[in-house]
């Protein structure tokens, strides 16, 4: 496991926490990821852009083994996903995931949603888990909702709970799959604000999003997917102000 000292160094000198080599995935005969190579440094914030159906979700879902892949190699925090299935659980402890549809457990209170995994997977005492959960709810700004059910919260609040729930497992990497796409416009900011704070705290983040301002402000690097391939990557400035590839220019012209 990479240690915290790694985080003290400037980004370029840090070790990689995610190494994806030559990743290929098929859904049946449909080739959805084609020779994808991505390295992510500890504490780096990577935003993934690309048109719908280009394989962004599939890519970040392979990183915590929600999707299988057929060829290539994925190493997350020195755990190799490709050669042993039993590594799946180890990797899932290291990575938190936030979904477009929140996916909170509707039959549990907010507090139970957050403490479930720490209690049963991390084997924490209930008091400790609840204390951590309350601190996290404090951090995402809704401690007063702890004893309500997900259905009683607004979309933005639910997504913030989902972030808190993922953070409660103390992951070293957070994956976000279009976390604001299902939200009403007035709630997008509250979720993005939480994500910005998280990014500044040194969390390694992979974010699929269409929020260009967020990407510009927070991302260390932007990766552009099209048709299962990475067609261009670079810093926000490089990519937005000086795109090299034709397809990048076209995508940006459509979205900006």
């Amino acid at each position: 496991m990479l240690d915290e000292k790694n985080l003290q160094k400037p980004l370029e000198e840090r070790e990689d926490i995610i190494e994806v080599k030559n990743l290929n995935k098929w859904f049946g005969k449909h080739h959805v990821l084609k020779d994808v190579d991505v390295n992510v440094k500890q504490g780096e914030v990577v935003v993934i852009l690309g048109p719908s159906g280009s394989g962004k979700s599939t890519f970040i879902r392979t990183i915590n083994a929600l999707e299988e892949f057929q060829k290539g190699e994925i190493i997350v925090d020195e755990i190799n996903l490709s050669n042993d299935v039993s590594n799946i659980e180890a990797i899932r402890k290291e990575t938190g995931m936030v979904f477009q549809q929140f996916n909170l457990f509707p039959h549990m209170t907010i507090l139970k949603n957050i403490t479930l995994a720490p209690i049963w997977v991390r084997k924490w005492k209930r008091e400790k888990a609840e204390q951590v959960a309350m601190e996290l709810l404090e951090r995402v700004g809704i401690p007063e909702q702890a004893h309500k059910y997900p259905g009683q919260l607004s979309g933005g609040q639910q997504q913030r709970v989902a972030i808190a729930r993922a953070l409660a497992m103390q992951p070293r990497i957070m994956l976000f799959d279009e976390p604001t796409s299902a939200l009403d416009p007035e709630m997008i900011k509250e979720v993005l604000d939480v994500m910005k704070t998280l990014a500044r705290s040194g969390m390694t983040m992979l974010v699929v999003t269409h929020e260009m301002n967020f990407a510009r402000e927070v991302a260390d690097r932007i990766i552009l997917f099209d048709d299962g391939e990475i067609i261009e990557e670079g810093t926000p400035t490089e990519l937005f102000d000086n795109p090299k590839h034709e397809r990048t220019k076209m995508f940006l012209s459509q979205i900006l």
Partner: protein
Amino acid sequence: MPHMSSQANLQQPQKRAETPPPKTSVGVIGWLRQNLFSSWANSLLTVIVGTAAFFLLKAIFTWVFFGAEWHVVSNELNFLLIGRYPEEEVWRIWTLLLFFHALLGLSWGFGKGIMNSIAYTIGGLLFISMLLPFIEMSTRIWIIANLATLISFFFIGHKFPKVKKITFVGWFLSFPIVIFFINGLGILPNVSTNLWGGFMLNILLAVVAIVCSFPLGILLALGRRSKLPIVKYFCVIYIEVIRGIPLITVLFMAKFMLPLFTGGIEVDEVVGAMVALTMFSAAYMAENVRGGLQSLPRGQFEASQALGLNSTYTTVFVVLPQALKAVIPAIVGQYIAIFKDTTLVLIIGLLDILEIGLSMIAKPEYIGLDMEVLVFGAVVFFIFCYLMAHVSRRLEKSLSVGNR
């Protein structure tokens, strides 16, 4: 400051004062007009149905209070309820009932909500039977003792919520306790199963079938989704075969085929019936649960996996609670059906309430009293089935807190 208020009006339209609803839509008259006489077709329908209902109710009333000869039921009440269970051992059943009323009272005390309706129904039944004119004094005393137990344990449960644990242990141990009391198990004088009968037998069979088929059905439903082909196809074949044959066949098969599995040892008929009803009910339970599992969005599994919960935890904490909740009405419907189906055990020679009733009708002294006996049976079943349906609705409501 008139100019100020007009300015405020521009930004924020003033709230309109609330006006009361029109007179014709409130009160008894309003209700009648809206629901029964809203149009001439509706009025006509009301009159026709009302008249029919009146004559029907009048006929029923006349028969119940003036036409029917209820002595057939009152004379044979014991027989109908507990069959040929020996008279000198009947105290054991009463003691069992005391035990259950204590548990029910405790659960009612701290449970409220759902337990309310059960306790009121059971308490009401006890109260009415206590007032029946034709029962023996000893029976009356037992009934009063049961009612008193129910009520006093309600207050204990209410005052000391700490008895919760004891109550759960009590419910958990209730099955062995029932078997011990009814059978004797060599400590009390043995009452073999061929003497078990009447409505007591229906209840015993139903409770065993319901309690055992619940976990079995869940396992079968989960097995049906298993990735292991052997497990999967065993479950599929079991479910489809059982659902494809009538219960009567399963009952006969249990009677004649169980000895093949036990190496020729004779299987008790009541036990055989319990096994058959459980196996039958489990297949239907499995299909109900499968419906619930299918209704769960994939995101729930994924969120659970992404948190690192393994498949056992995911199933126990995330999947099953939601899946079962979604199909409570179907499950309870299935339980009501199996409860009523317990009357089919008469075809393998068990003396349940229906078989006893039929045998009474056949007696010369009760000739022509079929209706009385059958109506009594119907009412007894109706009370319990309605209670189950009612509890199911309450359960659904209480579990839907805060859900969309």
